[in-house]
């Protein structure tokens, strides 16, 4: 009798587990690849929580560390894995994703009437050759000058310099050995020259402010032009000739650049406007923070590198309709409004900037809006490999192993050798 009772209990328990498994399998849970730690993205967490409440669809947020984003996001899509249904993708990746048909078109959730509310420049990168739209412009990170207004004004500048020559003169004044021990205590300027994304973005910023471009209309690399050489030479001179930039920039990505500035070791940095503005404002030198347009070679307004983020839907997702709903939700007006307020995620839904509450609450909103109006983002198939090749050559030039022209020519030669 006892033996039969145990059997019955065992069968009952197994049945309960089996039923639970089936019901769990029927409940949709989307996998969302978040760029970076969740702790740094409170707005994203709130938006996704709202999505879960509004739609009843669960979302599992998976943080992807910055240095691993290319490997994990590209790898997931290339291997047709279904771990992530929606991925937070950089605009630079879209040519690869679209041409390989790794991401699903979103026309049914992103009709032309809705598209009209978004920044046209950001939209163009999200469209495929077939005319379909493959990604929502979510938020952008325009480049701005972050500077210590107290130091710049003390150096005699009421407005931030607009040309490279004036900028260099200011940096020299702000590079100081305050205790006379032969070691520079404060540098005028700091930029990222770390391997990969760090030095790539820095070079692109200098290139754009020299009125140059990475590629021509046919996608051929043209960064070894006169503008490109001038840009790289200026980077080299700032570090090696004028020493207004610390040599340790060779190790820095943008996070380390921000840390260097926040520690008071540099007066000026060029960096992405976004959550960094909040961090800088909350730092010891936050009260003195001001933003400005990047100085250009000739003093005239130049394009501003603006990395744009798009939620994209994995074409192999097992829950395509739900995944598309999530992508649309992340990039709608309310989400972009929330992201801007909570995290300084600069929106691409243009009406957000017209919100009186936003204008009142967001410092520097005019400077940010100005930067977006001149936003520029170029990309090319094989972006990750191109970035690796170019960053290696640029770093060789920064170390004095090659001239600027040699470095850029060698980068293009290597790209051709690999059929990129």
């Amino acid at each position: 009798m006892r033996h039969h009772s145990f059997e019955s209990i065992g069968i009952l328990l197994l049945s309960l587990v089996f039923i639970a498994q089936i019901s769990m399998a029927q409940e949709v849970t989307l996998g969302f690849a978040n760029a970076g730690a969740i702790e740094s993205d409170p707005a994203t967490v709130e938006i996704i929580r709202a999505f879960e409440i509004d739609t009843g669809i669960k979302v599992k947020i998976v943080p992807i560390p910055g240095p691993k984003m290319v490997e994990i996001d590209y790898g997931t899509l290339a291997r047709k894995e279904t771990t992530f249904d929606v991925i937070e993708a950089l605009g630079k990746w879209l040519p690869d994703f679209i041409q390989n048909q790794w991401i699903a078109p979103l026309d049914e959730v992103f009709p032309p009437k809705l598209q009209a509310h978004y920044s046209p420049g950001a939209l163009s990168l999200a469209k495929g050759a077939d005319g379909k739209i493959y990604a929502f412009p979510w938020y952008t990170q325009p480049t701005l000058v972050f500077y210590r207004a107290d130091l710049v004004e003390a150096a005699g500048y009421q407005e931030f310099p607009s040309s490279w020559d004036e900028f260099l003169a200011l940096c020299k004044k702000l590079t100081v050995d305050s205790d006379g021990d032969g070691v520079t205590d404060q540098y005028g300027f700091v930029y990222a020259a770390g391997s990969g994304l760090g030095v790539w973005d820095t070079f692109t910023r200098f290139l754009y402010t020299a009125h140059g471009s990475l590629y021509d209309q046919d996608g051929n690399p043209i960064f070894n032009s006169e503008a490109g050489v001038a840009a790289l030479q200026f980077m080299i001179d700032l570090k090696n000739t004028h020493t207004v930039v610390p040599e340790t920039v060779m190790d820095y990505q943008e996070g380390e650049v921000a840390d260097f500035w926040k520690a008071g070791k540099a007066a000026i940095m060029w960096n992405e406007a976004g959550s960094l503005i909040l961090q800088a404002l909350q730092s010891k030198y936050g009260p003195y923070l001001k933003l400005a347009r990047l100085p250009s070679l000739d003093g005239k307004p130049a394009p501003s590198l603006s990395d744009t983020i798009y939620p994209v839907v994995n074409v192999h997702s097992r829950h395509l309709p739900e995944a598309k709903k999530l992508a649309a939700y992340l990039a709608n007006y309310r989400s972009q409004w929330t992201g801007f307020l909570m995290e300084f995620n600069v929106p691409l839904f243009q009406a957000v900037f017209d919100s009186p509450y936003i204008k009142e609450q967001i410092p520097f909103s005019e400077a940010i809006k100005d930067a977006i109006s001149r936003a520029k983002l170029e990309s090319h198939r094989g972006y990750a490999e191109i970035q690796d090749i170019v960053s290696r050559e640029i770093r060789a030039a920064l170390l004095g192993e090659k001239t600027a022209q040699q470095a850029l020519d060698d980068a293009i030669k290597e790209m051709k050798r690999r059929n990129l």
Partner: protein
Amino acid sequence: MVKSLTRFIDQAFPTCMFLPAVIIVLVVVGFPTLKLIHTSLYVRELLYNRIYFIGLSHYVNLITDKLFLSYLGHTLVYVFFSVSVGILLGLVLALAMHKITLFKSLFITLLLIPWMIPDVAAGIMWKWMFDKIFGVLNVLLMMLKLLREPYYWLGNMPSAMFCVITVEVWSSLPFILLILYAGLQRIPQELEEAMMIDGANGWQKLRFLTLPYIMPEVRFVLAIRTMFALRAFGLIWIITGGGPSDKTEVLATYIYKTGQIFLRQGYSAAMSMVLLGITILFLGLYLKFLQVETHE
């Protein structure tokens, strides 16, 4: 018939006992290796949806790939210095431990600490220690008046290579120390005493007694450390990322980038096979030239 069945079972039994282990090794080691060889014969570029048979062309291209040859050179330099310095230092420490009687357990425990620290944590820790502005190494050297101003260890060559080799030696020292120390325990005390009585000095004792006795352990450590150094990845990736420029880039980091980031898996597989070949070559050389009689 019963007798022949019993004989068959007796003969087959040992084979059956190690068959599961053989199957596991074939599955876990053999299958991936065969798959790697297979992949290396194909162009497999996931980014461009290009997958087709190319035979040995990848291997031919490697001969003219300047980057591959350069990184092979970096790898050999890295292996040579990290293994030789590691073994020499390990031997010195093992000999010292062999002599010490006071607080021996404490010293052994302290010397094992690098082994307890994961590569990633160790890499981050050392990276900060080598930092020009915030690093403790420059502070110490300036305090000792060995440096007049902070030095950019990770931003210059050959100091960057020196730094990653130092960390590799530091992390491998416990393993080398333990193996060599165990070998030293095998030396009969009577022989040591006999040599002392005969008036042998330290160097003679080391050359004619210690080294011959611990040669099996030295050979073992040499083989294992060479294998690990040839495929070194984690510490270099964390500390320098292959920089400055690409001066500390080694084959393992290049293979990883090519296969996982650039998604050129065929070419990456071919490089992996070459690295495997080099590893087997080194092991073969050690086995051939370092054969010694074992002393009981």
